[in-house]
Structure formats: C-alpha cells, structure tokens
C-alpha cells in the first residue's frame, strides 16, 4: 500500500486545465521529484495532495484511503511562499503549528529545540521571523513543516533561495527523513537536486505529464549523443567520420556530438591511431538536457 497515490487527477480553473491526468505513487521512504517549468502545475498538484483544493477528476489515495481529516496530523507542508507569521516569535508559532497538528506542548517544544540545534541556530528560538534573513526564514518554514514528525511531507521549492551550505544541510536532512521512512513529494526546477535525491520523477509541462519514471530508466531511453575525448595530441578529420554531427575543440581535447551510439567506437579507433587517448566517455544525457529537450523548445 503506497502512502500516497494519485490516479488520473485533473484540476480545472474555468476553461483552463491546470493539471491534466497526473498519476504517480510515492512509496515509504522515497523522495519523489515533481519537475516542471513555472506554471506547469506543480503547486496545484501539491495543493490537491494536501486537500487544499479539490480535484475535478481522478482520485488521491493516502495509504489506500481517500482524503480524511486525520491526515492533517500526518502531513507536513512547506509552501513556496514561506507561510509564517512575521511578527511572532519562532518558538511560539512553530509550537502553535505543531499543536494544531496534534502534538502536545512539551513534545512540540522538544522537537523544535532539537531541530534548531540540528541546524545550529538555537538562538533563533526567541527571535521573531521578520528579524531573520530570508534563507533562515526558509529554514524555520522547513522546521515548521517537519516538526510534528509527519509521514507525508510536501516540499514546494524547498531549496530555492538558499546558499550552498544550507542547501547541503537541508538535503542531508531530507535524506535522513527519507531513511526514517517518510514519504516526500518534492518539487523543484533545479535538476541537480533531483538527480541526487530522487529515484522517481515526473516532469510536467503545461499541465501534462511529459516524462515519468525511474531516473535511470528515463536516461537510458534517451540516446547517448555526446562523446568526451581527451587526448595528448591533435586528432584530424573527426568531422568526416560518418555519424558525427558536430565537433567542438575544447581545452584538452574534443567534445563531439553523434547521431548514433555506434559512431563512438569509430571515433575512439581513429583517435587511438593518431595519438594517445587520456579519456574517453560516452556521456549519458543529464536530466537538465532531457528537461530542456522536452520542455525548452516551447519555452521560447
């Protein structure tokens, strides 16, 4: 039984379809990536999962059951615009939010102190949100989303606007939550985070699902069209090899684009005949490339 399962979920705003037939499953201890350009339908999907808005079609199942009030206790949510009271102390509002989610005062306070300690900012306990920098406000929002030890966590653009140190800190925390069995639905438009954290992803484009599945499977579906070649000397006539579409001279060798994977062998042989090969790699497409290929063209 998957903790979270979406089946053909549709959401319409007037004549506009915001989310069209999305289906996905998030398992226990999984970080599921939801990718897409701005306005692709990520946030709408998340809001439907949270029960904030009601799907116009399809169904959302939590541990096999439809939405019910008890879910409020086991879900955590970090909205894209950090939802916290600017003028109220960190301790007061996070304990308040945790209590609304069914925690006792003592447990909430203990949990908050643990997380502040964990993020190395115990002094924020008595600070008001508006006194903190934007990045730190976001950390507090993150704590507010997980302070009650939820089973399902929804993170909308959790890492945007953070410095690299804090991104690493949050990534480590998210991984830790995953290892403890939390199901995390995670949206972003930063591919490198997804490749590091997620096994399965869905790429949304203009309300439709364009790519979905295991990252490795997805990548294998896309042909390897790039060869990286580092050599000690020059290699002539690479561009006349059949199947080579472009050759670019780079610092220590060549960056070659090919039409079919078989061409790569010809390049290697040719290079070995002429000089010493230091490095040869048939590169797999990055998610970024896949994303741009699927989404980018219509972006312009």
């Amino acid at each position, binding site marked *: 039984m998957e903790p979270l399962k979406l089946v053909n979920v549709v959401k319409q705003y*007037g004549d506009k379809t915001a989310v069209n037939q999305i289906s996905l499953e998030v398992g226990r201890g999984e970080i599921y990536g939801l990718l897409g350009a701005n306005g692709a339908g990520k946030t709408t999907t998340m*809001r439907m999962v*949270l*029960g*904030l*808005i*009601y799907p116009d079609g399809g169904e959302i199942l939590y541990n096999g059951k439809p939405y019910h*009030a008890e879910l*409020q206790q086991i*879900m955590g*949510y970090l*909205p894209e*615009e*950090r*939802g*916290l*009271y*600017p*003028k*109220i102390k960190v301790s*007061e509002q996070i304990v*308040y*939010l945790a*209590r*609304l*989610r069914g925690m006792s005062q003592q447990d909430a306070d203990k949990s908050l102190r643990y997380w502040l300690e964990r993020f190395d900012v115990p002094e924020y306990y008595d600070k008001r949100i508006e006194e903190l920098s934007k990045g730190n406000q976001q950390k507090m929002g993150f704590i*507010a*989303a997980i302070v009650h030890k939820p089973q399902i966590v929804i993170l909308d653009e959790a890492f945007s606007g953070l410095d690299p140190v804090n991104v690493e800190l949050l990534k480590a925390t998210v991984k830790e939550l995953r290892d403890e069995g939390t199901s995390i639905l995670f949206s972003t438009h930063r591919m490198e985070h997804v490749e590091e954290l997620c096994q399965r992803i869905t790429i949304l484009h203009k309300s439709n699902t364009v790519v979905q599945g295991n990252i490795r499977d997805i990548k294998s579906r896309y042909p390897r069209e790039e060869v990286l070649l580092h050599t000690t000397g020059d290699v002539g006539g690479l561009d006349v090899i059949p199947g080579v579409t472009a050759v670019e001279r780079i610092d220590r060798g060549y960056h070659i684009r090919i039409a079919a994977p078989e061409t790569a062998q010809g390049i290697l042989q040719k290079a070995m005949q002429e000089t010493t090969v230091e490095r040869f790699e048939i590169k797999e497409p990055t998610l970024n490339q896949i994303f741009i290929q699927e989404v980018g063209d219509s972006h312009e």
Partner: protein
Amino acid sequence: MNKLGTIIGFTFKNKARTKSFLITTLILALLITIGMNVPYIIKLIKGDDASKAEQIGILYGSQPVIAAELEKYAAQSGNKDYTFIKYEGTAPDQAKKDLEDGKIEGYLSFDGGDGAFPAVTFTGGEDGMGQGISSFLMPALQTVKTTVIAKDALSAEQIAALNEPVKLDTVRINAEGKTEAGGDTHREDMQKAMNYVVVYVLLILFFTSNMMTGNMIAAEVTSEKSSRIMEILITSVSPLAQMFGKVIGIFLVGIVQIAVFGVVVGANLMLPHNQDILQGYSLSISDINLPVLFYGLLFYILGYFLYAVLYAAIGSIVSRTEDLGQAVMPITMLGLASFYIGLFSITASGSMLIKVTSFIPFTAPTAMLVRIGMGTVPTWQILISLVLLLVSILFFGWLSAKIYRTGVLMYGKRPSIKELRKAMKAYKI
C-alpha cells in the same frame, strides 16, 4: 475542541500583546479620563468664579413690587446659581455698562404697568438668554405674577398650592392585561433614567466594539491569507475551528479592552469631585434594571458573533489588506444602520420600525435592547428574537466557514459567485 482552545489562546495572546492594541487602549483610556474630568478642570481654571452666583440685573423703575417679589423668590428658592441685583430708575445706562463689563449676565426691564402684569424684557450679552437663565427666570416670573395678581384675594397657602406642579402618575397595562401600579414614582423615574443610560451605553458599546473587533478579525484573516500561512493552517485544522477560534479569541481581546475602560470609568467616578456630580444627577447603581442588563449583554454577545463571522468571511475573500476597507463596507453599513435604528428609537420604543427590526437578526441586538430597556416586551417576543438570532449565527457561521475555506485559496481576481458556489460544494468543513 482542544485545538479550538489552542487557537483561541494563540489569537488572544498575540493580539493583546501587539503594540498597536496596547497604545490604542492606553490612548482611549487617557481620553476617557480627560473627558470625565473636563468639568472639574474647567472649574479649577475658572477658580471661584464658577461657584459664585451669576447676577441678573433688575431695572427697578416703575415696578418696585415685582422686583422686590423676584428678589424674595430668589432668596426662598435656594437657587445658588443666580441672584438679582437692583438698578435704580428706568434708564438702563448703568446696567448696560455692567453687562459690557461682564458683571451681570443680563437685566430685566418692565414695560407698561397698566395691565395686570407688565411685559418683561431680558437684555442679555452676546450669548442672549441661556438655557440656565431661562429655566430659572420662567418659574420665577410665573410665581411672582401669581403672587402679584392674587395677592389680596388668596392666602399664602393657596398661592403655594397654585404654584405646586401637577402630579401625573403613570399606570401601565402590560401584555398579560395586568396593571402595574405606578408605585414610587420617583424611584421609577430614576430607574427609567438608569435604563436609558444602560441602553445608551450598551448601544454605543455594541457599535464601537463591533466595528473595532470586526475590522480586527477581517484584517487578521486577510494578512494570514496574504502571508500564505493560511495554507498551512487549513491543512492543519478544520476551517470552522479556525474561524471560531479567531472570533472568540478576538472577542476576548475586546472584552479585556472594555473591562479596562470600565475600570477607568469606575476609578474616575470614585474620585471625590466626580462623586458630587454623580450625586447631582441623583443616579445610583442600585437603580440598574438587572433584566435589561442581562438581555442587553446576551444580545450584545450574540450580535457580536453574527457580525464577527461575516467579517471573517469577508476577510477571507480579499487577498490584500488594501482592498479590505472597501470589501467590509456592506457589513459596516449594516452595523451603522443597526446602531442608528436603535439610537433614534430610544424615545419611540413602540414604533413599527423598531418592532419589525427587533426580529431581524442583524438589527435585533440593538432594536430589541431598546425595546426591552425603554418599554415592555412580552417574553415570547424576546425568545423568538433570540432564537432567530441564534439560528442565523449557526447558518452564517456555517456559510462563512464555507466561504472562508474557499476564499482563502483564491488569489488575484475576486472570485465570481459561480466559482464560489462550485468550490463551496466541493469541500466539507
């Protein structure tokens, strides 16, 4: 239920601690204190002048008898505010001069002593004849006239009896057909006056606290919406609990504020110099009609909730605090109408308007209050009005929670009625 308590506590604590609330309360308390002590302060500034009687000149002229009687009357009546001062002759030169110098408030002159009683003219300064002077002179002249005309025909007792005001007792027949004896007229008058004060105070209290707390609620909801914390709140707790938690929390804040003002008013009344003034009106707390107070407070609280849930609903539809003022307009108007219907009907508590409006939930808190306080209302009518009010609180509370649930997620353009209706159908509260 537990969560409701958490929300009430959080709302109360954070609202009551804001600087704006503390400062407003402090300033208003200060204004009340100043306002209540203004008469005393003026008295202090004016010094002894105020306690000294104001003088009214009499041109003795051709009517020495009337003048003498007036002086006698003034001495007998025990009125310390005005005394007469004599001017010899008929020429007003000296009196005019004294008037200009401010020594006297005005002077009386008599024309044509041929008839039974001459025409009397009061010549005053810039202010003319003030209310105080008029209410002093009229009975004085009336008494003197009687004395002068009937002097020889009637005995002193008969004249005194003539001057006695007519006694008019009231007896009311209530709705059950029983007569209520007039009983102690004085006490009844005092109770009526006290009822008037209670009704008046409750009316103003209802109106001001409704406006203030109502706007507070709407602003609170809108700011939660614009800071998107609403998205977290709605996924944590049911909108109904959220809305009523907020409404009750802010209600408590309002109560605390009113209590503070009450203490300030009480403390000011306790001051010795204000005690005298209060006694001057011969009002005492024991004259307060408890049923009026009880019903007044009951209608006050229920009315508050009815308006408060509507304010919360409006707050949830608006996305930005700047748009709020315009959006709450209809409810503000409703509150205003309710207030003025009550206020204007205090003297006409039996009118058709107030009878009808006392059954309309939005105006019932003020209209019924006036009816109970200033007249008699059959109990069954009060109960019907209360039940209607309760039912409409439940209905509008439910409707507002629906709007709240739906409205908080509509950003940007204002939602159309159709969209709202569709969204409302979808959510359970």
